[in-house]
């Protein structure tokens, strides 16, 4: 066991993937000498050389487009998009190419490409540095979308993502980069990359969250417990596909569901979860599924971001509203 921050755990996972598979490459803006603006690729260029860990020109479409070509040549590129808000210039290459090439070629071409995206708010950043664009990609057939929430899990997940033969969008909750946790560097992940995980068991209500909102939800559950409410918290982990089985089993037990994410509620991941659970658990739900998330506004200036972001109080308020329905 080693105590690592989330950022260092991902760094360790990348190191392990680079070490175990010569076809793995890291590419992106400032991932080389600088080690990335969050130091997630720190020292990797020094260790694996400029051919395997390299800086690219400042062009996201170019990064993804050339990574697709590298993948077609047999490599397994891991691309870093410096911040959530800068993935959009690559949208066409991701949605019309990366997601569709395997289908287009009737399976002849696989594109084992991982796109790392530091995402979400809460770090007091300027515009375009605090967004949660995951729903755009989860709505795109052909892509897989996952998000880690803690160091230990991230260490295994990044390796699983790189090992996947499908393109994977790997969303990293940047505001949790500095959160430490014990990580077993030798462990082989027991949980599949696309499985959700119950992080806090409970019986009265289920909270589904992912990425940065898992810690928030767990804290809310703790506070609820102190007030006598038993909340089960599920870390979704995979946003596409979604492990609905785990959610259904929990709702079958609790009868109540609250979904939490930073992204705008309107057409956010919560919409799909609420729609599907409301359909499948129609007779089990004791109260309407409640969604807690960002508002239908651009991400606000950081001085007011705390009012935009779901926090413990808003999760507790949703829990109260759900339990109020008898």
């Amino acid at each position, binding site marked *: 066991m080693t105590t690592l921050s989330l950022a260092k755990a991902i760094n360790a996972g990348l190191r392990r993937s680079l070490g175990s598979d010569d076809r793995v490459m890291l590419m992106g803006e400032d991932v080389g000498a600088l080690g990335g603006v969050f130091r997630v690729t720190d020292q990797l260029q020094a260790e694996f050389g400029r051919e395997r860990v390299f800086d690219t020109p400042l062009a996201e479409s170019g990064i993804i487009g050339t990574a697709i*070509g590298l993948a077609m040549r047999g490599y397994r590129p891991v691309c870093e998009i410096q911040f959530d808000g800068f993935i959009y210039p690559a949208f*066409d290459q991701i949605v019309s*190419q990366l997601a569709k090439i395997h289908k287009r070629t009737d399976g002849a071409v696989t594109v084992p490409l991982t796109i790392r995206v530091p995402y979400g708010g809460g770090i007091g950043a300027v515009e375009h540095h605090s967004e949660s664009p995951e729903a755009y990609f989860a709505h795109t057939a052909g892509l897989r979308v996952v998000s880690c929430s803690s160091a230990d899990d991230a260490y295994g997940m990044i390796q699983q993502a790189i090992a996947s033969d499908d393109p994977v969008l790997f969303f990293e909750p940047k505001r949790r980069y500095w959160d430490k946790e014990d990580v077993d560097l030798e462990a082989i992940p027991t949980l599949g990359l696309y499985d959700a995980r119950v992080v806090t068991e409970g019986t009265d209500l289920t909270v589904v969250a992912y990425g940065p909102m898992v810690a928030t939800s767990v804290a809310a559950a703790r506070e609820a417990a102190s007030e006598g409410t038993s909340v089960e918290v599920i870390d979704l982990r995979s946003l596409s596909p979604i492990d609905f089985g785990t959610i259904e089993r929990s709702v079958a037990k609790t009868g109540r569901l609250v979904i939490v994410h930073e992204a705008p509620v309107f057409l956010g991941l919560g919409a799909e979860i609420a729609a599907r659970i409301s359909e499948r658990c129609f007779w089990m739900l004791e109260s309407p599924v409640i969604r807690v998330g960002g508002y239908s506004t651009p991400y606000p200036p950081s001085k007011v971001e705390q009012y935009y972001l779901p926090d413990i109080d808003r999760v507790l308020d949703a829990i109260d509203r759900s339990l109020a329905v008898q």
Partner: protein
Amino acid sequence: MSIASIEITGHTEAVALLPTAGGDLVPHPIFSAYVSDIGDAELVEMYTDLVVVRRIDAEATALQRQGELGLWAPMLGQEAAQVGSARALREKDFVFASYREHAVAYLRGVDPTMILRFWRGSTHSGWNPYEVNMTTPAIVVGSQMLHAVGYGMGIRRDRSDDIAITYFGDGATSQGDFSEALGFAASFAAPVVFFCQNNQFAISAHVGVQTTVPIVQRAAGFGIEGVQVDGNDVLAVLAVTRYAAERARNGEGPTFIEAVTYRMGPHTTSDDPTRYRDAEEVARWKERDPIDRLLRTLEHRGLATPQMLAAAEATAGEFAASVRAGCLGTVEPAPESIFENVYAEPHSLLEEERAEFVSYHGIRDTKAADR
């Protein structure tokens, strides 16, 4: 322009080797050397290629008219640009094409029937890219060049002397992805040949809408060597492409080729060029027909014998017939194929949807029965 500004100078005239008027090859200080091995036999071969691909193209247009294809993008007029460049490639080189490179596909060894399946709507591809080292049609204009550059970056890391070549049109040069591809290719010295078929149009937009200067000049701004070639001169195109390929194999990085040609037909079978271009212009280019151009040289050399011409026609006829037969004989994909090859690994949601789909269609069929 002021002397403080950058000026484009130097010889920008399109390279040509086949005479326009008559007589034998026009010598070129640099490029003649690249086709010194091309003798009578090879010229006849190229002529046959041109005749064959034109016939396949015509047959496809006919099949579309008869409702056998949903759409077709004719290459009429661009045969030399495609045949000349494709003949400069090695088997292991990889082609990243757009949607109009039927002749290139043919020369890579793609069964022409398979080319048509895409346009029929029976598949998104038509062939396995790795079997012929050529991608299937890239419909999003400008999307394929970056793939070629990335592939080339991989070639370089493999210390291989393969090259990547990407085909695209004049319109595609306006897309940001094209410029990013030039930038990455230069930055990583990727062994890539950028082959632009400037057929003067992007659907209805004349090339003048895309650029106010010759497209070939674009490359220099990225530190990439550019060569403009007469796209209707199959021999010159072969020479120039061999030159670019050699540079790539020698580690000299990317080269940009602008093949100046003309789209004699409509953009696709659903286009109506009379709305945006006049007959005179088309007529002028008809006189520069790439097949006639080569034929004149063959005649000059006494190679255009009735037998040779008949043989070429015969080969073309056979291909046309097999293409037609293959097209009519297409076995359409099964409904469930919708769910195949979306992911390389199992996907829970997709499997659910597939199961529902299968049972639903079972249900519907019986329903339909007792209606």
